[in-house]
């Protein structure tokens, strides 16, 4: 009984390792976009991803037919959403591609455009009606196109700055 358990544990560990080797890069890219950090200094993104992956490891059971990638992304989104106020406060440090957006706009933009998640699924993930998701996405796209990609912290954005 005990031997069979350790054998299964070892197999899970191997599968998990293979999963991280394959999907880690893409997940870390998504996490870094979410936190708005530059790719070279993405400590927050790494921490988020490590915690999300740990949950995936603890629940590892591919026989249940769950996609580990989806699971990890879901965990990542939940973690980011529940700690987003921290990222709000550290706006000055966010100098990544999406630094000009609010955490919520980043979340929607990354899920919709970079990860290609359907609007309804995004809405379910972050608990908003899908019309609202569409509005946020459109606004985020407009913001991204309104200023050159290289320029950082160009103009104070009304609404979003007022909240912090």
């Amino acid at each position, binding site marked *: 009984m005990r031997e069979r358990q350790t054998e299964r544990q070892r197999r899970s560990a191997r599968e998990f390792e293979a999963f991280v080797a394959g999907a880690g890069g893409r997940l*870390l890219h998504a996490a870094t976009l979410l936190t708005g950090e530059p790719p070279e200094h993405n400590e927050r993104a790494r921490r988020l*991803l490590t915690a999300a992956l*740990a*949950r995936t490891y603890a629940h*590892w059971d591919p026989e249940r037919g769950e996609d580990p990638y989806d699971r990890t992304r879901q965990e990542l989104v939940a973690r980011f959403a529940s700690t987003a106020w921290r990222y709000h406060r550290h706006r000055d440090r966010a100098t990544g*591609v*999406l630094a000009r957006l609010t955490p919520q706009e980043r979340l929607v933009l990354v899920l919709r455009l970079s990860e290609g998640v359907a609007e309804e699924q995004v809405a379910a993930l972050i608990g908003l009606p899908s019309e609202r998701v569409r509005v946020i996405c459109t606004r985020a*796209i407009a913001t991204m196109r309104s200023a050159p990609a290289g320029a950082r912290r160009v103009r104070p954005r009304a609404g979003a700055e007022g909240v912090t």
Partner: protein
Amino acid sequence: MSLPDRKEAEVRRLLEGPHPPVPPELTVRATELGLRLLRRRRAARWLMWLVLWAAAVAFTVWAARVHPWVAPPSTVAPPVEGL
């Protein structure tokens, strides 16, 4: 390609940008953390069973001593004597 699609594609290209390098210790750290989570969960389950078991034992001992199913002797009518 319609206009909104073109805008989306433009931003999508921006998002594609340079990918951050994956730190080599990512798997190890995630595994460690995951194992810790598993251990904690196992400990919590064990504690729950322990509490349940203790409650069951306590109830059995109490029931065996007090016999709560036996009706207490009536205190209304006097005992019948000398029939």
